């Protein structure tokens, strides 16, 4: 009996697989209908939802605590919790999406959001904001806007804002006699600061990591110099000459020995807490603002006595080069329990106690009340406080909001790094590499 049932089931699904395959494009998945009941997030907060996020032990721990608090406040709710490390998280997410089985609540960033909005697998949150199910009153507008898709609708509610900063090993800088960078420093100042510092670096230590292959540094540079990153079709918005100028700047530093060698660059572990900066092997590097605490911790063991600080990105004619990279929760189109999903997102982002518990583990709390409460919290570590205060400063200067087109994370970042690698290893000229990058990126971006 049992076997028969299983056989039947499996046979049926195999048939269903093939059927659904052959009927492709019939519009069965023509996107979320805005008029499904509960699309405004109003309704009873009850029943099951699944929530997925990326992160390791500490974030699992903190997120679980917040979920437990949410369940305690809303009896009758259960949450299927799913977590994995960043890259694996997206592998799993895409497999689930293929099975039309995305978790109700999905953590995303602007860097990938449009891969999903383009394919209509997420619900716009605007109706939920209008109905009051999700509150955005205490989140700065520039931050909320980072959760918008290319169509202008809000798809994820940023709860934690990361930014990229320039991490500087102050001990090494002082030993080299270059001191600290002045407030509002620009790229030329930064470059000469690094060059000067290199003259007095200890053996085997470079003044800077190589920023040529780092998309976030490049974004900072374009923002400071008033270049457009992407055009309205989601293709590259800057000129080839902009890119070659940026790469030549780093090539110049590399050839003078100010930066690490290309071999070292490609050998470096990707996690910021294992970077050369965190091991005292370079004096400065771009560093995600929220990696300041873990990087400082690593440095304290790798080079006892040395200290790190983070500064905003260099400025330029167009102002600060800092961009925000917030993470937040989105609601999937296949979600059957939108009211609970909306309530969860709202709770996670806006509740004061939830915010205190989560303690800005993934970027600074976007809700200003939560943020202020954390900064005032005496139990917050000094490094963490520094992260939050730097964020507060950046956000007060009304940072630019970048809408990343579909394919940004998988194509732009990957191609950018590889193309510069070809230059650094001397396999291509700067112009050739720029051509290659433009071809690869424009072929896929925005699709």
């Amino acid at each position, binding site marked *: 009996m049992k076997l028969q049932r299983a*056989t039947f089931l*499996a*046979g049926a*699904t*195999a048939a269903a*697989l*093939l059927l*659904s*395959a*052959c*009927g*492709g*494009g*019939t519009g*069965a*998945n023509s996107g979320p209908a805005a008029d499904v009941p509960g699309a405004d997030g109003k309704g009873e907060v009850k029943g099951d939802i699944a929530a997925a996020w990326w992160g390791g032990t500490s974030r699992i721990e903190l997120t679980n605590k917040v979920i437990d608090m949410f369940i305690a406040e809303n009896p009758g709710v259960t949450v299927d919790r799913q977590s994995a490390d960043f*890259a694996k998280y*997206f*592998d799993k997410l*895409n*497999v689930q*999406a*293929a099975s039309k089985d995305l978790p109700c609540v999905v953590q995303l960033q602007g860097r990938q959001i449009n*891969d*999903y909005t383009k*394919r*209509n*697998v997420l619900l716009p949150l605007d109706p939920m904001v209008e109905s009051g199910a999700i509150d955005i009153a205490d989140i700065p507008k520039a931050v909320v806007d980072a959760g918008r898709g290319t169509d202008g609708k809000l798809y994820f509610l940023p709860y934690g804002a990361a930014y990229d900063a320039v991490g500087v090993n102050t001990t090494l800088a002082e030993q080299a006699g270059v001191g600290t960078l002045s407030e509002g420093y620009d790229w030329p100042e930064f470059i000469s600061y690094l060059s000067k510092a290199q003259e007095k670096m200890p053996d085997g230590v470079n003044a800077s990591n190589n920023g040529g292959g780092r998309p976030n540094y490049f974004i900072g540079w374009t923002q400071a110099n008033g270049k457009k990153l992407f055009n309205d079709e989601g293709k590259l918005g800057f000129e080839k000459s902009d890119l070659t100028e940026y790469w030549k700047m780093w090539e110049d530093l590399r050839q003078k020995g100010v930066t690490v*060698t*290309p*071999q*070292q*660059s*490609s*050998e470096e*572990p*990707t996690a910021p807490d294992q970077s050369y900066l965190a091991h005292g092997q370079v004096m400065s590097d771009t560093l995600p603002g929220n990696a300041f605490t873990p990087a400082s911790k690593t440095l304290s063991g790798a080079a006892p006595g040395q200290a790190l600080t983070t500064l905003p990105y260099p400025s330029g004619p167009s102002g600060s080069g800092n961009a925000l990279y917030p993470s937040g929760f989105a609601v999937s189109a296949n979600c059957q329990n939108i009211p609970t999903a909306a309530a969860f997102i709202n709770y996670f982002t806006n509740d004061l106690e939830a915010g205190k518990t989560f303690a800005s583990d993934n970027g600074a709390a976007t809700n200003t009340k939560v943020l202020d409460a954390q900064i005032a919290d005496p139990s917050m570590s000094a490094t963490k406080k520094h992260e939050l205060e730097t964020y507060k400063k950046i956000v007060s200067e009304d940072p630019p909001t970048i809408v990343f087109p579909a*394919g940004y*994370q*998988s*194509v732009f970042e*990957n191609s950018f*790094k*590889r193309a510069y*690698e*070809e230059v650094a*290893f001397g*396999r291509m000229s700067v112009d050739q590499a720029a051509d290659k990058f433009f071809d690869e990126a424009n072929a*896929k971006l925005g699709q």
Partner: protein
Amino acid sequence: MSDAPAAKELTETVRPESLGTITDDGPRSARQTRRPKSRIMKSKTREAIAAYVFLIPWILGMILLTLGPMLYSLYLSFTQYDLLSDPRWVGLQNYTRMFTADPRYLKSVAVTLVYVAISVPLLLIVSMLLALLLNRNMKFLTGYRALFYLPSLMGASVAIAALWRLVFGAQGLVNQALAIFGIEHGSWVGNPDDALTTIITLTLWVFGSTMIIFLAGLRQIPKELHEAATMDGAGAIRRFISVTIPLMTPLIFFNTLMGTIHAFQSFTGAYVVSGGTGGPADSTLFYTLYLYQRGFAQLDMGYASAMAWVLLAVLAAFSAFFFWTARFWVHYGDER
């Protein structure tokens, strides 16, 4: 093990000398013709029925679990499929794009071919030599075997990436050892010219599985054969060539075929060492790594499926050829 006596009893009926001769002296059909015709029919049918009874689980699994997903991926290879929305039929477009408009694809083919050509023979030789070494009688044998096998036990554990950098990094073990001899060398993992070498080394490091299969085969060779050969005055090398090698050919065949298939599909080593990028500068962009990047990161599963089926076609052709060669050099115990 309780059945061992029964087996032993039966083995005693085997003439030991017949084990050593590997010439094809008695085709089974010749023996069968001696039986009455009706009995052959009957026993043949009975045998076929028994065979299919034995095969029930596998056939079920094949149809329900394996074939469906395989055929679905074949269908996907003719579509544009981004995982998130429904597949769209594009005919042969994925296949033609691969060979005409994708330099990274060709790069991945080149990397993989170099890897297969170097790593497979090396792996076979190293594991055979170590299996021979560990098949001797000596002290601490069990311990040695376990220790040689240890790296293979670790699988693709997350720790390996960190360990690998430690060995082949600019400040790594290898360079410190080279420095003793006054040789200076940059990073091995970080240099596009050397990165593939380190992945081949990683493959050799986990030779254990291949070695265990050889070792298990060596244990199965009856000692009497070696003793008989020794009596006939054969030296160690002679015995290896005329006794060990012929009896090992089914497993040599197996390990070569499977090693080649695995090498073509090799993913984990490059994924772990390069952090999934295939870098530096695409020097470790293995076929399946690129396939994975296309399918999962770039959401191009149609293209990835097409890549997979091209690989399947190549491997099928290779396997068919290899099976054909087997008739000339592989000797089975059931051929006597």
